[in-house]
């Protein structure tokens, strides 16, 4: 017994070292599947407050450039609006707006601010200053003024983390606008302004410069939110489909004001979709 104690005392730093390594490595390997780990993410309150302070100061200095950009955007949108109104005629616009007001919107938006964001990791995650108390839930879509930004991952009371489009785990169902064929957007961890649109069928016709938008097949994003434009095409590794290179419209290096999309899709649709996913997982011959 004395010998054992002496042994433990002599090698206590070895034992502690192994213990700490086991803890770190289990954090490293189990994190992705562990949804309860919101305290081990930047969505916890202490980090949230800290990042909020720091982003307040950095925003303070970048305010004027952002204001300029917004002004430019408003002018462009007003011109476009004017042009469309002239083409359609005022009556048609009024009629359309009236018909839209009569039915409840399928999606509503929760404005939020990005308080921490990365673009250089292989799995980039950002933190927003809104959480469960503001109505944010897991798996909601996040967009900024220019296009798609990411999907909500972990939610704490006052903050949430978002899997950015620049994350190798994020997959978003997209389609080529005006042509209808759809595929999956996936980031290849190389540049922060491009991603790949995969599984585009080989019979699809498209041009470089075609716009890519969300398909609306899931309830996360509504149909038609801008994603990017096609700047290159190649064959997929199995040769069965095209892989398109997409220049993203969202500037992830300057992300600040975003909106979280809350889907008001009928409860029925959600239940139906959940049941079908569950039954696919349950049936034994479904793993391909």
């Amino acid at each position: 017994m004395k010998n054992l104690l002496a042994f433990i005392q002599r090698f206590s730093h070895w034992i502690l070292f192994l213990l700490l390594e086991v803890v770190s490595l289990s954090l490293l390997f189990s994190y992705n599947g562990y949804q309860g780990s919101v305290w081990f993410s930047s969505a916890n309150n202490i980090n949230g407050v800290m990042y909020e302070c720091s982003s307040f100061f950095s925003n303070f200095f970048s305010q004027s450039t952002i204001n300029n950009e917004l002004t430019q955007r408003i002018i462009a949108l007003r011109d476009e609006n004017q042009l469309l109104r002239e083409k359609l005629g005022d009556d048609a616009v009024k009629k359309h707006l009236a018909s839209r007001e009569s039915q409840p919107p399928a999606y509503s938006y929760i404005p939020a601010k990005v308080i921490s964001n990365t673009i250089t990791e292989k799995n980039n995650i950002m933190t927003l200053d809104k959480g469960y108390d503001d109505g944010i839930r897991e798996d909601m879509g996040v967009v900024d003024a220019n296009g798609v930004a990411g999907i909500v991952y972990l939610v704490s009371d006052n903050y949430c983390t978002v899997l950015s489009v620049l994350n190798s785990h994020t997959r978003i169902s997209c389609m080529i606008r005006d042509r209808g064929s759809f595929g999956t957007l996936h980031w290849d961890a190389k540049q922060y302004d491009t991603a790949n649109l995969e599984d585009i069928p080989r019979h699809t016709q498209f041009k470089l410069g075609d716009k890519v938008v969300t398909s609306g097949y899931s309830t996360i994003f509504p149909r038609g939110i801008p994603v990017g434009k096609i700047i290159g095409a190649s064959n997929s590794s199995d040769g069965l489909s095209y892989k398109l290179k997409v220049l993203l419209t969202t500037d992830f290096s300057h992300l600040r004001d975003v909106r979280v999309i809350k889907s008001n899709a009928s409860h029925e649709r959600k239940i139906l979709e959940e049941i079908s996913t569950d039954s696919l997982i349950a049936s034994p011959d479904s793993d391909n």
Partner: protein
Amino acid sequence: MEITIKRIGWFLVFFIVQILLLNKIHLFHVATPFLMVYFIMQFPLTYPRTGLLLWSFFMGLLIDISTNIPGVTAASLTIVGFIQPYILNYFAPNDFYEMDTPSVRTMTFQKFFNYAATVIFTFCIIFFSFEAFNLFHFGDWLLRVVFSGALTLIFILALERFKR
């Protein structure tokens, strides 16, 4: 007691500077300075090894939590905390007092440079290997190790220059 409070102060300073400032630096998209390694480098040879391990682990864990990659920094910084005494012992000059904080003044520039470079590159190699677990490009990995290591070394030598 006073020295422990001082250490806690430096711990917080290195932690906050690292996550709010240095982690946002990505020179040429590959180089990030890891100044928290400097905190681990400053422990004298006589410091209890279990203590050093705990300091490194918690520094790593806090940085991990703030950057949303749990485990990576904690695992690599704990390894560095474990081998720091061995590296320091190897590079320390003959007249080095065991209670001394390793620095250019106590070790001469040449020895301190070797010591710092060994610790920093060990950290960078381990850190980027853990980080690359799900997506590994060798060229990318090598660039990140070399440039981040070099940048960290420059930062630390610059800080040494300003130290009393």
